[in-house]
């Protein structure tokens, strides 16, 4: 059982160069249960990354706390895998070595490492690219490797920060299906950040809508679409209805940002 609890977590970035301090995140509560797939949806600059980085332990909250299975998060660790929006594969390691990075850090033997890495390489459809350098991969392939790298560590929860944000539409749709297929089969606890409404609905069992600056949770919507989901679901009336509802929520937020800008 995995339970992630975010309790009254807020983050204010201190003032710099005479600018006022930035309140990136208002006190926020969030609970994610075992094998949940939660998507966080919000306009850019609303504090999504800030929240995710605090959960990952890469940033400290100004107030409040994050616990994973009752233990307070005080820093980054292998129990919370992270996939970043930017390409963060280690350029000096091959695809296989990248995926095995966490295993090697834990002292897993090379034979065992390669076995696990190769299984994930198959799962994300990169067979034949085991010995390629990241430079030789397309953006989509790099992100698939990054997902495999996080999964190979068998984290309790997988954190993804707009991992497909820089990809073209076709690639992004394929990546969404791949990620969902992995989740449907392996049942992982996932927290996925995005600003793409369709992506949030298609992937999530629950969509959390965040409001614009200062960021806070504005609405929470359950997505009761059946699994396994394929891209075809995006044109069903249920999907379209959910989408319309979320468009409305996001639009009011985006308008607020525009007014204050």
């Amino acid at each position, binding site marked *: 059982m995995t339970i992630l609890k975010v309790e009254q977590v807020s983050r204010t970035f201190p003032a710099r160069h005479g600018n006022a301090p930035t309140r990136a995140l208002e006190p926020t509560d969030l609970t994610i249960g075992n094998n949940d797939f939660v998507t966080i949806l919000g306009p850019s600059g609303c504090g999504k990354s800030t929240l995710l980085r605090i959960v990952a*332990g890469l940033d400290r909250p100004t107030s409040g706390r994050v616990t994973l299975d009752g233990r307070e998060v005080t820093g980054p660790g292998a129990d919370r*895998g992270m996939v970043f929006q930017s390409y*963060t594969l280690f350029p*000096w390691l091959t695809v296989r070595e990248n995926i095995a*990075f966490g295993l090697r850090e834990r002292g897993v033997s090379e034979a065992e490492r390669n076995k696990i890495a190769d299984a994930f390489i198959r799962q994300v459809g990169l067979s034949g690219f085991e010995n390629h*350098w990241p430079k030789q991969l397309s953006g989509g392939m790099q992100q698939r490797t990054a997902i495999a790298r996080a999964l190979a560590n068998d984290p309790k929860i997988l954190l993804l920060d707009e991992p497909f944000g820089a990809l073209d539409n076709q690639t992004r749709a394929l990546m969404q299906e791949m990620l969902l297929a992995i989740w449907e089969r392996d049942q992982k606890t996932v927290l996925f950040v995005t600003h793409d409404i369709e992506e949030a609905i298609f992937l999530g069992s629950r969509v959390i809508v965040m409001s614009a600056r200062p960021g806070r949770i504005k609405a929470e919507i359950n997505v009761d679409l059946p699994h396994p989901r394929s891209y075809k679901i995006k044109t069903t009336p249920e999907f379209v209805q959910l989408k319309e509802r979320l468009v409305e929520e996001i639009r009011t937020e985006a308008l607020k940002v525009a007014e204050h800008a």
Partner: protein
Amino acid sequence: MRPLDPVTSKQRLAYGLAFFVVFVALWSWATFGGHVSKVFLANPLTMVQEGVDLITKQGFLYDIGMTIWRVVGGFVLAAIIAVPLGLLMGAYKPVEAFLEPFVSFARYLPASAFIPLLILWAGIGELQKLLVIFIGSVFQVILMVAVTVGATRRDLVEAAYTLGASDRGIIRRVLLPSSAPEIAEILRLVLGWAWTYVIVAELIGSSSGIGHMITDSQALLNTGQIIFGIIVIGLIGLLSDFMFKAFNAWLFPWRLA
């Protein structure tokens, strides 16, 4: 010719060779044409004859060997100390804060100015020569390595942390490999500078080496030998640079992929 237009590798070679043709032509014109006195500048032919004489009759190969050994010895000594220290400075800000002011200051101390002092301390033996190279290189390498390591992509470090890397793991498996190509480039650059220090060290109080030969030739007004010595230094520098480059490319295939 248009700005930033590339040239083919054949053209590049041709242009490179053309320079030397023009250079030797001008040199020949000045010397054979009698525009410059023999006392000040030997002509190309004399230079080659003196060179052959140096190598076959005066044991110049031994001098070359001595010089190479001094450069490499002093340089390796400097690298062994400087690379780990630079890595520590780049990785740990308190270490950097502690050492940076001194290293930045020491970097501007001219190695050649230490020669008289080093002769007092270490005599005129090999140790003194190595120390000149060492002093000339070590601070440069420390500082440049520290800057390179400090500039490691933060997102890679963060990714490694979320994969469970320890602080040791961050240094050994992220900071070091990500900076390694830059460090190799730094070493290549500083090796080039070490060549200039060694010659200066050999000009003063030395009984062997290319620099020693050059001082001897000066006393005899043998400009042919001097020029030959200088050209040999240039050629060895070029060769070592080329080998270093090839070695780096072989060592870091992921950069070229």
